């Protein structure tokens, strides 16, 4: 990993954290419901810098966000970590198996789906211990996740194109650090 990539990963992680924090300000009908705006950054990192960078950005975001909110190693952290890892692993796997099939939007949808599936599974394993309520909520969660995933994917797509076009500026940002 190049020195410059490290800077970029650090910068992207900071953006992801900021979005993660900003997202908690958006009122939601159900408190644990999230749009997953930070995933915009994960996808951007994945497309521009590759799987390892995206994994790194996810890990940094989950760990530091949980330290900020004081839930490090708590149950919420487990859900967050499980969801984040499942999402990035699934995106990596799909991209590896069929590189040209999906753009940022498709990857975002895959990420959202696996994020939700793993969180449902973890919630079942850790808290609920009953299969009926989990199965009951699953389609609702997947539908919301799909819509949120589309929004995130489009945002990531725009961001990636913008970054590619203004490549010099990014270069400068990294060197300026």
């Amino acid at each position, binding site marked *: 990993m190049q020195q410059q990539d490290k800077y970029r990963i650090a910068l992207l992680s900071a953006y992801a954290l900021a979005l993660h924090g900003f997202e908690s300000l958006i009122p939601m009908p159900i408190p644990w419901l999230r749009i997953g705006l930070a995933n915009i950054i994960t996808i951007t990192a994945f497309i521009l810098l590759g799987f390892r960078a995206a994994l790194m950005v996810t890990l940094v975001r989950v760990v530091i966000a949980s330290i900020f909110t004081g839930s490090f190693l708590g149950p919420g952290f487990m859900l967050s970590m499980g969801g984040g890892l499942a999402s990035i692993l699934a995106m990596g796997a799909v991209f590896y198996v069929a590189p040209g099939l*999906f*753009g940022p*939007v498709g990857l975002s949808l895959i990420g959202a789906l696996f994020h939700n599936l793993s969180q449902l599974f973890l919630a079942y394993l850790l808290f609920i211990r009953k299969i009926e309520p989990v199965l009951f909520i699953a389609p*609702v969660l997947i539908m919301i996740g799909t819509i949120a995933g589309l929004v995130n994917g489009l945002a990531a*797509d725009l961001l990636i194109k913008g970054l590619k076009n203004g490549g010099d500026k990014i270069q400068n940002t990294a060197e300026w650090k």
Partner: protein
Amino acid sequence: MSLRETINGTTAGDRVLFIFLLLVSFIGIFFIKEVLPRGNEVVIEVEGRVAYEYPLDSDRTVKVESRYGHLTVEIRKGKVRVVDASCPNKLCEHQGWVSSGAIVCLPNRISILVGSQEKPKDGAVDATAG
């Protein structure tokens, strides 16, 4: 670099996946109820012992009596309520229609458990209440 361009620039895979996920979840929302076993029961306990058990989807009205008083339970359209209780403050009546959870009438020592919870063992009511 407009949003429209970005939407037009999505791959066929993206679009198929999006529509597929929406369809699956949409169908899932409507059909998961049918697939799940209807373990929904109304269990009426009198003085800590199970006295009546009814499926939640059978409409009926039951009069339940204990040594302390009586109340009438109405089951209709998957919901349960107490219509007439002999206790003074009628908390159970005010609770209205309940589709999951429990209605407890302490003065009469009668509790109505609604939903697919595990059945409490006999004598599970603690000493103060029972």
